């Protein structure tokens, strides 16, 4: 865990102090809302449908027990006893009072957390693979990179007023769990022919109104060149990114309109020019950051797990949880546990204060004091000794946190939608709840296999619906909630934007539409090994269109083929 320097700590405290006086001046009437709004947004404070919402940054999704406990305390003291983990690995509190927000920010500062740069046209919280530091397939832990970028980008004066927001994601593994291709900049750790670690730099990914998969800007960037290179990218974006139209202001449009080759030329030129004058981070700083992420002392002796394996085999509930909610660790004595925040019928990503405390306790007792928030709105214990699994499971079960559905149909990403968000065009949470209830039977869910459903309540796509195997987008169609379905999206290293099936469905019909899609897949698949995504890629959309819209869809699709010919 990175520890604040005196400078960091003082910086965060001074921001809280400033904001305290800004809140006072807003309340006593000396600041108008027009004056106050940009100030509150700079501190992560939004006004939603029913109340204020405070978005707290969880840098690259990493937490420890004291931080998680502090979030629980905040939820109890100043909110309604829960928090909502988001697809940006952050946490949101949905009910703070304006006057309390400075106190909340002070409480966060006590554990080296803040809400800075969680809004606005700046470089946002850097996200990273939620299995970082633990995954068996990892080249290097991506978090020192993410922390370096965080330090460089925090309060960076040149990049405080970009054309639009700028999101960076980093992964250290070839299996991309950080959706790097849907970010303004995605960094994938790779090795060159000499075996040195560096980055593949991806630019111009983004979902939202115009979804685009990022393109490779540089196939190998040495680690030492990271900051000057990023600075060159940001400079070119700052200079050439559009400011005339907010819908055309993200890097994806710059890449699209300028062309990758031209943009690459600009960046390389700026990089060469800039590299000599750029003050690289000192070796001492890099070493200090890296030392903050040294792996915990894990037991490397060869262990005998035969009695554990028997115990797991004999307990069907424990067994299915272990099979579904754990992943391979670099050290075979350990495993990565994903705690599902998707209980059947619950709100995806919500955790009560008592659940947060249980997760904190488990991290301390069994997980080397480490926790991660995933963009899939779950919480990870990255280093659990395998023989502790039964104990961890028992504690999670008591806290209602043992749902064995990670990666399955009920592990749904859903943005807050119109239950909270002022920008929403329809609700997302109730749709997620209903789908999970419809597929409550875990045996059936496991039979269906890996299936990612992602739901957004508007075109901004915070629920990543474009990269869901099944994506659902809530729209307002002439005063009625309507849900558009896309199929075949993929958020991994093979990132793909899902295809629209056709006309949308009303709130009452969307769940049975999903059921028809699933039934269709089960009929079509060549066997349990052919996942939904693979099967869809093989068959294409046509059988699904017929399942959704009936035989008319076949006629329409034939017409399309004829017209195209």
């Amino acid at each position, binding site marked *: 865990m990175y520890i604040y320097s005196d400078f960091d700590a003082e910086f965060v405290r001074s921001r809280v102090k400033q904001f305290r006086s800004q809140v006072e001046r*807003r*309340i006593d*009437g000396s600041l*108008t*809302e027009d004056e106050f709004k940009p100030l509150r947004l700079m501190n992560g404070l939004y*006004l*939603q*449908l*029913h*109340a*204020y919402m405070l978005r707290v940054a969880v840098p690259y999704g990493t937490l420890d027990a004291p931080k998680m406990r502090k979030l629980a305390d905040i939820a109890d003291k100043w909110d*309604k006893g829960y928090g909502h983990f988001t697809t940006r690995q952050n946490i949101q509190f*949905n*009910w703070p*009072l*304006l*006057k309390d927000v400075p106190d909340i920010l002070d409480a966060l500062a006590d554990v080296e957390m803040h809400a800075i740069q969680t809004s606005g046209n700046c470089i946002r919280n850097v996200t990273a693979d939620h299995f970082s530091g633990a995954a068996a397939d990892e080249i290097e832990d991506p978090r020192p990179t993410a922390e370096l970028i965080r330090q460089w980008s925090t309060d960076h004066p040149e990049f405080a007023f970009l054309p639009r927001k700028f999101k960076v994601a980093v992964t250290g593994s070839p299996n991309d769990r950080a959706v790097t291709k849907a970010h303004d900049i995605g960094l994938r750790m790779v090795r060159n022919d000499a075996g040195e670690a560096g980055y593949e730099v991806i630019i111009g990914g983004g979902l939202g109104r115009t979804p685009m998969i990022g393109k490779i800007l540089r196939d190998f960037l040495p680690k030492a060149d990271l900051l000057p290179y990023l600075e060159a990218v940001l400079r070119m974006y700052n200079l050439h990114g559009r400011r005339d139209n907010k819908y055309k202001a993200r890097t994806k449009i710059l890449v699209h309109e300028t062309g990758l080759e031209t943009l690459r030329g600009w960046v390389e030129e700026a990089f060469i020019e800039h590299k000599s004058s750029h003050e690289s981070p000192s070796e001492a700083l890099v070493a200090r950051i890296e030392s903050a992420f040294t792996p915990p002392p894990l037991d490397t002796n060869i262990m005998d797990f035969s009695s554990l394996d028997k115990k797991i085999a004999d307990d069907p509930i424990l067994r299915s949880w272990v099979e579904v909610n754990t992943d391979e660790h670099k050290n075979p004595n350990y495993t990565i546990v994903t705690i599902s925040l998707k209980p059947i019928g619950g*709100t995806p990503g919500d955790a009560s204060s008592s659940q947060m405390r249980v997760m904190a306790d488990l991290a301390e007792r069994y997980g080397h004091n480490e926790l991660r928030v995933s963009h899939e709105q779950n919480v990870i214990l990255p280093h659990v000794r395998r023989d502790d699994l039964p104990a961890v499971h028992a504690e999670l079960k008591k806290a209602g946190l043992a749902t064995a559905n990670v990666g399955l149909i009920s592990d749904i990403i859903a943005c807050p939608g*119109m*239950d*909270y968000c002022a920008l*929403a065009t329809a*609700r997302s*949470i*109730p749709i997620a*709840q209903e789908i999970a209830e419809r597929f409550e039977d875990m045996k059936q869910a496991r039979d269906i296999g890996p299936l990612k459903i992602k739901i957004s309540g508007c075109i901004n796509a915070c629920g990543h619906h474009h990269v869901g195997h099944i994506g659902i987008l809530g729209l*307002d169609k002439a*005063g*009625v*909630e309507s849900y558009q379905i896309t199929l075949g999206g993929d958020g991994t290293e093979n990132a793909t934007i899902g295809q629209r099936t056709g006309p949308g469905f009303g709130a009452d019909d969307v769940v049975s539409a999903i059921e028809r899609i699933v039934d269709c897949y089960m009929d079509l698949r060549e066997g349990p090994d052919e996942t939904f995504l693979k099967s869809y890629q093989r068959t294409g959309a046509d059988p699904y269109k017929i399942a959704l819209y009936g035989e008319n869809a076949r006629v329409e699709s034939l017409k399309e083929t004829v017209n195209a010919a």
Partner: protein
Amino acid sequence: MARAFTPKVVTANDLLDGDVIYLTKNGDWSRKHGAAHLLTIEDEANQWLAKAEAQQEMLVGAYLADASLDDDGKPAPIHFREAFRAKGPSNYPNHGKQAEL
């Protein structure tokens, strides 16, 4: 022919807690949609909105929302967004205004 005017209520969010508020006949603010003043004449609606907008020190984002009279003769929302604002989040029936309904 001029387009028929859909009656409106003036609504905003309270500055201190962000809760949804409605302008009443007396010119004060209520947390209940049913207590809102239903404005059936366009000019009047705009005048009431201007009055609300002048109260910067206690509210945020005043605007006019379509409404109609319900069976009890009280103003009720027309669009689903306004209906949710008048109620609270559907995933926690004990949160927001619906907790007191």
